[in-house]
């Protein structure tokens, strides 16, 4: 039956991989913070916008056409990876919005029209009509140039200028050629690093023509790097872990049949784990596979305990082994699975996937050992010398019962001191960067690109919710008023209010414009033969005016609408220094919410870290109670190694300067699940030598798997690996140290 289950899982997994590819983007790993529907929608809109777009900026040393030639040739060579993507330049925006410009005005011009004297208005009109460069609109349409000013202001938000087919940027007396590409996801995210290789080639070609500044950014860059490193890590970690387990298995059991069975159990565990994860989530992330290499070390434990028992004495009846091992194996399985399921309680889909992957893999190993191994008829297995030798060697290690009272006191004081000082000096941390393994250069380029392109922040912005469109616009306009009243250097907004006015403001502005016209009309009539004609407010309803904007293709992305009465107000120029002042602009406006995505994620990580820490304490208490019931007076030997192991691991990491993050706590939960096994088996063992040897084997294989995780480029996985590896060592040492000696009653 179990064979059938495994075959179905293997088939399902294989066919899924033939049609799909694992997730590679970091965004899917990010925690879903407890936020409103609007915030979720806003975040989705901002993150989806440029998902497959790659920005390339090249500093131009001399002739931009030479650089353009290099870029074009590079694009041709890499046409399977990326294609040129049209970008909106200033002229695109200006052309698109000319039709609506006459209904708009900048905040500055509105103040001007309100405050200028008749003479000043006349001077402005005269300047406009006498300049040889003809204005964009006729004097009847736009007598004071306010429509043109509004167009220029909108266009100025896009620093990219199209000049004779080149998209150029200038900043700090340097010129850059701007290009935007759309990547082919299947080619770029396959883990081969093809995008990174292509960019290296581009950099080399650009150096030949004298340009040594290439700035590349975009989600594809980060995601392809993540996929490439994950692929490498799976290969390296998986290979070394497997080789290590094979070598250890051979050394411990000295039989090819045992080694083959161990590998079979590992393989079927991975197949079942992958199939379960895909079935539950519909997807699987490459990071899950990286973490899943630890299954190699965990699943081997059940096989090790079985064969450890099998080698205790001459046996012909394998079923008795299962009967004897079953209670301990079940306890061990429950503690491990519970630990993984706690991971699933976090808001990070990546963690949830890892939890489901590992707990289903562990269960599968348990099932395979219990259901398959007894069916295999070994020839009689001799009393195994290697296990006995190793067991005898380890039994010579110091133990608690052999120590003098003074030594015991000293150890207790030293241990308590380490734990107390370590816990007191804990450095709590909750950073989004823990999930990211990208090179620092990528972040520097992203920041520089953002400054050059004058882009808005995708992580800090306002969400404005109104009762209707009019209310929404009025609230946005209030934000703008506040910024105009108390300007913050470098900060500007972009929102729907840039492109259309509320009915209230439109009426007000129209009145101001007509008053301004009337004030200079006597002079205009004398000069040009007829007066300026008053304009009526637009006859279109507010919804119709919005529809006009929505019908302009080049404009849709700039409106930042979430629904008919909710929209974002995006912010340019946010820095760490002005963040609070920007936030304060939205204070006490009903319906205006400040969103700080980075902070929200950190708060979520912190919240879950603390919650899981409480769960850790509760779990320890629950297991202690269960073990007390099972082992009674000897239960302390079962739970104390793990309790001490967890405490000392946390304390030592703290003393070494490591941060205390959600990943530290999750690793400690895992330690609980893995560590209690050793105490359980040790306490219930009849023949201690073989059991201690088996436990050592299990510890070494787990140490190997998680120890290799310390080599991961992802900080979260590195923390996991370090914590579990250190904890495993301490728990194993404590299990051996607190063992029951033969002379103890």
């Amino acid at each position: 039956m179990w064979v059938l289950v495994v075959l179905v899982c293997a088939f399902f997994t294989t066919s899924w991989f033939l049609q799909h590819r694992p997730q590679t983007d970091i965004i899917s790993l990010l925690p879903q913070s407890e936020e409103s529907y609007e915030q979720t929608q806003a975040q989705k809109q901002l993150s989806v916008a440029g998902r497959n777009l790659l920005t390339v900026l090249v500093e131009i040393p001399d002739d931009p056409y030479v650089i353009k030639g290099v870029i074009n040739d590079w694009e041709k060579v890499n046409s399977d990876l990326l294609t040129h993507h049209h970008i909106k330049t200033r002229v695109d925006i200006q052309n698109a919005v000319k039709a609506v410009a006459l209904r708009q005005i900048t905040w500055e011009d509105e103040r001007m029209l309100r405050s200028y004297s008749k003479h000043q208005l006349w001077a402005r009109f005269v300047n406009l009509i006498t300049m040889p460069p003809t204005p964009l609109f006729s004097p009847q349409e736009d007598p004071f140039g306010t429509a043109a000013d509004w167009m220029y202001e909108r266009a100025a938000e896009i620093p990219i200028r199209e000049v004779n087919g080149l998209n150029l940027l200038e900043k700090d007396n340097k010129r850059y050629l701007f290009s935007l590409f759309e990547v082919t996801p299947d080619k770029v995210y396959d883990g081969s690093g093809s995008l990174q290789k292509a960019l290296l080639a581009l950099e080399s070609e650009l150096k030949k023509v004298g340009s040594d500044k290439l700035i590349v950014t975009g989600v594809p860059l980060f995601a392809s790097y993540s996929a490439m490193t994950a692929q490498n890590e799976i290969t390296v970690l998986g290979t070394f872990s497997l080789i290590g387990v094979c070598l250890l298995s051979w050394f411990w059991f000295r039989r090819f049949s045992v080694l083959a069975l161990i590998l079979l159990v590992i393989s079927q565990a991975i197949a079942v784990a992958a199939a379960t994860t895909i079935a539950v989530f519909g997807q699987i992330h490459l990071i899950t596979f990286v973490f899943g290499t630890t299954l190699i070390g965990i699943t081997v434990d059940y096989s090790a305990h079985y064969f450890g028992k099998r080698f205790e004495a001459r046996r012909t009846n394998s079923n008795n082994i299962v009967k004897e091992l079953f209670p301990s194996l079940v306890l061990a399985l429950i503690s491990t699975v519970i630990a993984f399921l706690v991971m699933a309680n976090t808001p990070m889909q990546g963690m949830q996937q890892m939890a489901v992957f590992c707990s289903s893999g562990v269960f599968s190993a348990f099932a395979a050992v219990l259901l398959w191994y007894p069916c295999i008829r070994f020839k009689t297995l001799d009393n195994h010398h290697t296990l006995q030798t190793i067991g005898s060697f380890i039994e010579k290690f110091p133990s608690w019962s052999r120590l003098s009272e003074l030594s015991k006191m000293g150890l207790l004081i030293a241990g308590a001191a380490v734990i107390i000082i370590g816990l007191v000096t804990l450095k709590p941390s909750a950073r989004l960067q823990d999930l990211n393994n990208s090179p620092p250069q990528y972040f520097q380029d992203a920041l520089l690109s953002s400054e050059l392109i004058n882009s808005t922040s995708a992580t800090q912005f306002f969400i404005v919710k109104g009762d209707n469109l009019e209310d929404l616009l009025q609230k946005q306009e209030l934000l703008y008023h506040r910024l105009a009243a108390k300007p913050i250097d470098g900060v500007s907004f972009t929102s729907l209010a840039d492109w259309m006015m509320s009915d209230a403001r439109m009426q007000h502005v129209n009145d101001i414009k007509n008053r301004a016209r009337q004030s200079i009309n006597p002079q205009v009539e004398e000069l040009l033969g007829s007066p300026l004609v008053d304009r009526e407010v637009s006859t279109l309803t507010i919804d119709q005016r919005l529809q006009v904007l929505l019908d302009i293709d080049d404009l849709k992305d700039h409106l930042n609408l979430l629904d008919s009465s909710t929209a974002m107000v995006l912010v340019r120029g946010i820095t760490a220094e002005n963040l609070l002042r920007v936030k304060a602009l939205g204070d006490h406006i009903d319906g205006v919410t400040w969103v700080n995505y980075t902070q929200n994620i950190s708060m979520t990580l912190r919240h879950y870290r603390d919650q899981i820490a409480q769960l850790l304490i509760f779990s320890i208490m629950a297991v202690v109670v269960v073990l007390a019931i099972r082992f009674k007076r000897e239960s302390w030997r079962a739970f104390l190694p793990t309790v001490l192991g967890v405490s000392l691991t946390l304390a030592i990491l703290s003393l070494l300067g490591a941060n205390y993050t959600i990943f530290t706590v999750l690793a400690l939960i895992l330690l609980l699940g893995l560590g209690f096994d050793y105490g359980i088996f040790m306490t219930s063992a009849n023949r201690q030598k073989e059991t201690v040897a088996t436990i050592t084997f299990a510890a070494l294989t787990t140490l190997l798997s998680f120890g290799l995780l310390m080599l991961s480029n992802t900080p979260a996985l590195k923390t996991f690996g370090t914590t579990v590896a250190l904890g495993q060592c301490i728990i194993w040492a404590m299990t051996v140290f607190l063992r029951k000696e033969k002379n103890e009653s």
Partner: protein
Amino acid sequence: MIKKWLTVLCLMPLGMAQALALNLEDLSARLDRPSLVAGSFEQEKFLIGFPKPLKTQGVYTFWADHGIVWETKTPFASKMILTPTQLRSVSDYQERSVSSEDNPHLRVLNQLLIGLMQGDVKVISEHFNVAFKDSEDLWQMLLMPKDKNIKMVFVKILIEGDKEVKTLRFYSPNGDLTVIGLKDQHHPENIPQDLQIHNKQ
């Protein structure tokens, strides 16, 4: 030089003569290209929606590669200083400055006007398709913009001249027509202070 070109024109059929008679390089060679020139202007603007054209008169100074000072004297005094990077307008009541870096069409326009005044072939051919008509003393050059920036401001530009640019007609998309006549061109001794200030900046 002009007589040579006229001789060529007379000996050939008109169509071929037009095709071969004049191109930008020839025109550039024909034009006087002083580094500093001043003169007076008369400007007529025929504005849509107004029955009377706006007539202004004034003086200008052109300094090659640096800019133009355009000073209107009548019917009202105002001054415009146009440089490769800026357009500054000054009157009794206000001073306004617009950076051509922020306004693509303005940047190109500034380059064009300066380029026209100094017969810069590269600037003209870069942004316009050019058609010529050459008669005995006068030449006519019709510029049709290639650039999206310029198309927003001009439908076409018609320039007439002999050794110097005499008349410029700017046709706008909104239907306005600006006719600028240049005369009394001479070479001043001093560079205008307004352009000197900009140069120092």
